[in-house]
């Protein structure tokens, strides 16, 4: 794996890595994590006490829910991915970022887009597609920023001074290309006003396109993108190479090929063709193999680096994120099996599944990466290792509590939705079942507060680490003749 000196200029090129934009993206990501998770906690509370919307439309569950998902996925998640991609692509290519001005444009335009998009969601603008709620003006803006992101990233790779393209860049590259494709196709729409458009697709086709987008947004953004983060930062944390580089490449291609077909499992027992549902299920099951190959690769890499655990609290987050990655990537294929899906679909089990991935995998690996990255960017030690350790236990407790509460709620709902009485009528009404869920939702609220408290500790810890400091310049190492392209 490529290495870089931290502060010493080497060779004739004295141009430093462009890390200030990375710091800015990390800071924005942390701010979005707090806002997005706070919105999540509020809507969790609304499910226990519905009056918490205070009769305001913009505080209603329907609007705040999409604000929550957009803020955590696109604000927290994408800002973290953009920042870590910019950081790692420079170090794995031994060159500063291509078009640094464009990188700054990506950074600020993205934040403005997420902020504006969030406000538009509160105002009631929505395309009505899950994870693609933003209306057409924002869709166009996202596409433009994304293309700029691609130019910076692939431009840097094109200028690289190392012949092999390290595996993390394959994952970040797939994230950029596939998300562009999914976003543009799924957002094709006919605008009727500034705040409203209608999808170019209709009926079952619209549903298939939406879940081709929706599932692969999970796949290539929340899985593939974060695997790019894992493959760069885990070996850096561990101070040793990936356990099996060959396995990582095989897993990449298997992952890329099989994920793209799995979307129809969101549409089991619907109006789409039976064979499409079957295909979605089979490809989802196949997906387990590359997912677990990556998990094994990560666990074996970290197993040889146990001495680091004494001094590096960040590594704990990565270890645990691998455990939840293993859970989520097993649970997903299992829930795609039609005989399981018939009970689990339209229940809170799905919500629990999403959060075992979102909290346990995405957030944990991002937290671990930030605890590693920020002190290095600032050229100092982490403000408090103790606070990071407290955060670790809060994050673990919050995630476990969330998942267990939703498992309990989901399985109960699945059984109750489908219960029949002696004459074959449904035994329970929707309203009665939902009314009985309040205790589970209260438990989920506690879980959310615990997890958010941990994120607040991270924000304070990193704020104190950054306060009064500037990003220290780092330089590419001296050219190595053996690795020239």
């Amino acid at each position, binding site marked *: 794996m490529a290495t870089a000196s931290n502060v010493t200029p080497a060779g004739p090129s004295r141009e430093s890595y462009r890390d200030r934009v990375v710091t800015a993206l990390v800071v924005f990501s942390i701010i979005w994590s707090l806002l997005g998770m706070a919105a999540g906690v509020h809507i969790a509370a609304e499910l226990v006490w519905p009056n918490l919307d205070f009769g305001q439309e913009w505080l209603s569950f329907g609007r705040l829910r999409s604000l929550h998902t957009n803020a955590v996925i696109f604000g927290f998640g994408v800002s973290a991915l953009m920042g870590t991609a910019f950081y790692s692509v420079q170090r794995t290519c031994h060159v500063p970022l291509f078009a640094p001005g464009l990188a700054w444009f990506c950074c600020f335009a993205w934040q403005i887009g997420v902020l504006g998009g969030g406000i538009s969601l509160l105002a009631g603008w929505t395309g009505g597609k899950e994870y693609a709620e933003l209306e057409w003006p924002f869709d166009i803006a996202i596409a433009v920023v994304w293309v700029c992101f691609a130019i910076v990233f692939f431009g840097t790779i094109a200028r690289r001074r190392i012949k092999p393209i390290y595996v993390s860049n394959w994952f970040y590259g797939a994230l950029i290309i596939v998300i562009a494709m999914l976003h543009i196709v799924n957002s094709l729409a006919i605008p009727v006003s500034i705040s409203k458009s209608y999808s170019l697709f209709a009926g079952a086709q619209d549903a298939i396109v939406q879940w081709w987008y929706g599932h692969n947004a999970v796949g290539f953004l929340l899985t593939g993108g974060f695997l790019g983060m894992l493959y760069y930062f885990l070996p850096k944390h561990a101070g040793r190479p990936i356990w099996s580089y060959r396995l990582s490449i095989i897993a990449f291609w298997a992952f890329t090929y099989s994920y793209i077909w799995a979307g129809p499992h969101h549409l089991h027992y619907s109006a789409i063709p039976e064979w499409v549902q079957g295909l979605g299920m089979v490809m989802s099951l196949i997906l387990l193999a590359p997912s677990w190959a990556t*998990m094994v690769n990560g*666990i*074996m890499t*970290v*197993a040889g680096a*146990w*001495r680091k*655990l*004494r001094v590096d609290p960040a590594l*704990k987050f990565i*270890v*645990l994120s*691998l*455990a*939840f990655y*293993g*859970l989520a990537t*097993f*649970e997903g294929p*299992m*829930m795609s*099996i039609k*005989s*399981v899906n*018939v*009970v*689990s679909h339209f229940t809170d*089990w799905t919500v629990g599944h999403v959060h075992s991935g979102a909290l346990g995998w995405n957030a944990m690996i991002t937290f671990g990466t930030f605890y590693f990255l920020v002190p290095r960017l600032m050229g100092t030690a982490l403000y408090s290792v103790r606070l990071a350790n407290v955060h670790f236990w809060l994050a673990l*407790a919050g995630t*476990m*509590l969330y998942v*267990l*509460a939703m*498992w*309990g709620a989901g*399985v*109960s709902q*699945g*059984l*109750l939705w*489908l*219960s*029949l009485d002696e004459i*074959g009528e*449904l*035994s*329970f009404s929707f309203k*009665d*079942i939902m*009314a*009985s*869920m309040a*205790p*589970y939702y209260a*438990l989920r609220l506690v879980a959310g507060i615990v997890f958010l408290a941990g994120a607040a500790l991270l924000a304070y810890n990193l704020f104190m680490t950054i306060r009064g400091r500037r990003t220290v310049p780092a330089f590419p190492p001296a050219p190595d003749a053996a690795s020239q392209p």
Partner: protein
Amino acid sequence: MPSILTIIRRPTEAFEALARSETDPLAVFFKQIVWLALAPPVFAFIGASAFGWRLGAAQPLYLSGDVLTQISIAYFFALLFGLVSTAFVGRWMAPTYGASDALGTHLALVGVVATPLVAGSVLHLFPHVFVNLLVLIPALIWSIYLLYKGLPIALGTGPERGMLMASSLVAYLLVGAVTLLGLTVALWASGIGPSIGV
């Protein structure tokens, strides 16, 4: 084997005793593991027969004696498989983390870690899902604490490698738990268990 009181009051001592003892796997299996796997299904059978499962909505769910027996037996074997397989998986992982590979010690460790959950399962006697969850979640936290605390001591590895191995076992157990959920609902969908409109 350490008693429940020792596990509660002096867990470190209990795990140190476990590390020192040479434990015969068959003895641990018959004296400890079988009983740990048996208690929850027995509690669940009695509770569901007497009170019915309370899922929160309206009437409790009563199952016929035959179905209850089938489910309880399946529950027993699932728990037995879970406990024994965790010990085998732990032994398989042991060389990676520099831990003892004595199967008896692994089985005994799994038994100790499972004890709070089994004790919490006494709530199956009153099978209200949420009430059970309220008790089993703290029990689970206690079990996870015992796993992280006890594994390095009982298996003779350092705290750092013990933490890594415990996390790997947590991943295995999470997958095991969700498999149990998936199998359960798949059985419902195929007509075994409560009558649902599928």
